[in-house]
């Protein structure tokens, strides 16, 4: 817990200063999760604001301060899911981002190991994002939370409010679908950073 229950209780009772403190305590974590969920650095701040906006207006629905973190995670996941759905509806492609990142990489004059590492990291990111864009938003979010965020099954149970078995089935299916997309991608060009 990054802040105490009393602070959450105060925020629930309408104390704006307490809410401000909660945002300050959790914003970095929320930013990180959203960044990995949506894969678009320029939209992370906007989605994070949506998360905290929803938090502000739903704090009175929080049953107990003890379940605050799963609650915040759920809001984050929902906001990420809404964003991904909106983006899909707009038929946006990640390619625009990739070319932008490639341009940035090309623009930087500095060579050496640091530059190579950065390029490799960008390739891994692009590859995984392209892979995750092949599956549904639900699968993408679930797998990101489990494999990238490293959440335990118990934490996922609290977020999704389903039992462990149902969650395992969902995870298995999501993994299978990503693996299929992965196999398909193996046939195409594999980025340098992903090579074994």
């Amino acid at each position, binding site marked *: 817990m990054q802040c105490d229950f009393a602070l959450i209780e105060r925020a629930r009772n309408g104390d704006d200063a307490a809410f*401000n403190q909660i*945002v*300050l305590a959790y*914003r*970095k974590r929320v*930013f*990180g999760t959203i*960044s*990995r969920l949506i894969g678009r*650095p320029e939209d*992370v*701040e906007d989605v*994070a*604001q949506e998360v*905290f*906006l929803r938090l*502000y*207006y739903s704090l009175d629905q929080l049953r107990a301060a003890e379940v605050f973190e799963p609650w915040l995670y759920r809001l984050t996941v929902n906001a990420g899911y809404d964003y991904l759905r909106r983006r899909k509806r707009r038929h946006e492609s990640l390619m625009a981002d990739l070319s932008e990142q490639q341009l940035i990489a090309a623009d930087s004059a500095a060579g050496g190991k640091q530059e190579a590492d950065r390029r*490799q*990291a*960008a390739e*891994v*990111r692009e*590859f*995984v994002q392209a*892979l995750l864009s092949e599956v549904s938003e639900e699968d993408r979010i679930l*797998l990101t939370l489990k*494999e*990238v*965020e*490293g959440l335990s099954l118990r934490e996922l149970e609290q977020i999704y409010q389903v039992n462990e078995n149902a969650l395992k089935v969902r995870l298995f299916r999501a*993994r299978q679908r*990503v*693996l299929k997309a*992965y*196999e398909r991608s193996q046939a195409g060009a594999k980025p340098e*950073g*992903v090579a*074994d």
Partner: protein
Amino acid sequence: MSEENDRLQHLMARYRESCPEIDPSAGFMPRLWERIDARRSLSWRLRGYARVIATAAATVCFAIAVFQLSPFTVNPMYERTYLEALEADHTPEAMAFADLVVDEAGVKR
């Protein structure tokens, strides 16, 4: 398949490392509060309209209730007994007309 699973896990771990740490900009908190206030003022406005509509509806209901209970607007229908109403509905003229219809058509409609 297990090998593929391991490779996927490894790839996801690398993805986590490759994601840049994004720090909130200086305008994050002020803009958040702007959005909270904008929605708050909208909800206040909506609540105000709802209150006005509820008050108007309550006033109309009260007026209708007063009108209905007022001694000057008693409906004569409710003043009659069942027998009086039956009698009023079956006047001798009406009964004679009913007999006439049966006689001419042969069937009672």
